[in-house]
């Protein structure tokens, strides 16, 4: 599924958050979206997922404007792991993950065997089967994030939007999830848009990088072309050293300790 954004513009009151952004996202690709705080990363994902409606411009899913789709259709095409995963009600982990099947279950139907198999399969591969009967409200931040991530996987959408989905996970789980994402892209020709802050993780895992600053795209392209000292200085205003790392088999960024 191709995703095109055309002249997207969005403002909160008088403050523009996204300014005239146009770009395209293609299948079989892991996009890393990076940028300073307040550069509009979350807003961009909200606009793509249809949670917010742009002032101008449009989001096209395979040539269909997403404002023409029902919420259910959108949910079958796009899944979102949002930054805010706070849950107030003590649903069990299994219930929360079953909610990922919501777009496929009719209003009065019960989850069918496929849904239940999918849920237990996803819990297995994300390594949260042992939390199955625990209440989501009692889990740690990282565990909760893994559950929300599993819920999005369960949604089986061609496009996956991740908004700092690993911010509370330890490095082991982060690598595990990233590995699963790459695996999934390869198998399903899916598209992943991943907002993250760690330049080195992005450099190692993303196929393409999109640098966002004050609501505009500063740079976009193949990861190895985009991760450069100049771009990083321009976007984040920090000095760095970028070089290819043998162990990682990718470019890595080093920062000076002041």
């Amino acid at each position, binding site marked *: *599924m191709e995703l095109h954004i055309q002249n997207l513009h*969005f403002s909160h009151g008088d403050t523009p958050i996204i300014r005239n952004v146009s770009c395209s996202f293609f299948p079989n690709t892991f996009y890393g979206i990076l940028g300073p705080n307040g550069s509009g990363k979350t807003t961009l994902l*909200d606009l793509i*997922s*249809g*949670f*917010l*409606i742009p*002032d101008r411009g449009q989001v096209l899913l395979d040539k269909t404007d997403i404002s023409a789709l*029902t*919420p*259910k*259709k*959108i*949910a*079958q*095409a*796009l899944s*979102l792991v*949002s930054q*805010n*995963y706070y*849950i*107030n*009600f*003590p*649903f069990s982990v299994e*219930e*929360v993950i079953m*909610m*990922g099947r*919501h*777009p496929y*279950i009719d*209003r009065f139907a019960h989850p069918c*065997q496929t849904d*239940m198999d999918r849920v*237990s399969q996803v819990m*297995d*591969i*994300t*390594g949260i*089967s042992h939390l199955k009967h625990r209440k989501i409200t009692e889990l740690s931040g990282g565990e909760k994030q893994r559950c*929300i991530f599993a819920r999005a996987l369960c*949604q*089986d*959408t*061609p496009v996956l*939007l991740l908004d700092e989905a690993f911010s509370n996970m330890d490095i*082991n789980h982060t*690598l*595990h999830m990233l*590995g*699963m994402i*790459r*695996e*999934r892209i390869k*198998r*399903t020709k*899916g598209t992943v848009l991943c907002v993250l802050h760690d330049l080195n993780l992005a450099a190692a895992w993303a196929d393409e990088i999109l640098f966002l600053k004050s609501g505009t795209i500063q740079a976009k392209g193949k990861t190895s072309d985009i991760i450069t000292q100049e771009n990083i200085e321009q976007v984040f205003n920090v000095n760095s050293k970028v070089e290819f790392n043998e162990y990682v088999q990718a470019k890595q960024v080093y920062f000076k300790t002041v």
Partner: protein
Amino acid sequence: MEQNRNWESVAPGGGTISAKHPEKSVSAAMAADGWFKAMVVLCSFVLLGMILISLSMGYLSIPIPEIARILGNKLFGILEIATPLEETFAAVIFDVRLPRILTCAAVGAALSVSGVLFQGILLNPLADPYTLGVSAGAAFGASIAILLNLGATFVSTPVFAFAGACATLFFVVYLSYSPSSKGIASGLSSNSLILSGIIVAAILSAGISFLKFIANEQVSVIIFWLMGSFASKTWINFGVVFAFLVMGFLIAICFARDLNLISLGDRAASSLGVDIKKITLLLLITGSMLAAVCVSVSGIIGFVGLLVPHMVRFVTGPDNRKLLPLSMIVGAFLLLFADTITRAVLPHEIPIGILTALTGGPVFCWIFKRSRLR
């Protein structure tokens, strides 16, 4: 899109893939389902038992076999009524007790359903049907009706109360709606709804105080109305509440799964395909209408809508598909229990609103403190 539906996965980096037992998880789910159904049936029988006991208790004590005989005669035309005493019993049951008891049960059920809806929409397990000031609006409407002496015909006070509640609801929604939030986002954040509700309720209660101040001789009527009562309820009262209850419950159960998702927050719900703008508003209106009709018929009865869903959630968990039906039955039972105590056990009937607040309040404090300590 179809290709994505059946991908098999291998966990990278030594992930845990264990042998799966789908048939096991299905049977577990079915067992949980059966257990829930058994709970519903059991609670329904307890409620029916409570209705019978409540029918037999009162100034005139009627033995339960007599009640069975009279009900059998009037409802099904079997068993005959022989003595004049039984005629009296029949009159007491059908003209006095049954309307009151059924109205009371319906109000308890409706308040509980309304409470579940509000707690889900406002993302807050501690919200209640009166959070949005519906009760204050109804009370204001009723006070005006009483003050202007419109209460002579039996409908006008409830009608005014209902109008007051509706007007308040729409004002609160108008106040908290932010048109600047563009998109699927409902534009009705739970914080702004709660805040608007508090402000409007505060203004209205000052208004009620003012009405009481200028009311002279009717002041006691206003005060008594505000405290809530099921005394001298009619079949019409029951019919109105029951009709709203049936409608409200059907709407609520129809969108129960969406409500589950809404209670996780706007963004999660919308990304999972819930039309939050439409459904939030629909459920908000449903919950408020239920609360409004209850307050109009029986005055302000607090804590039922807060406490019942909260207690039932300990048993069923937060899944609204189970929470709604069970809360409805438990709510009907508890309010009927309280009303039977004040009607038939206590030496003087005290207003039901006071009784529920005096007993429900401390119970709530206890539950709340216990959950803080965990």
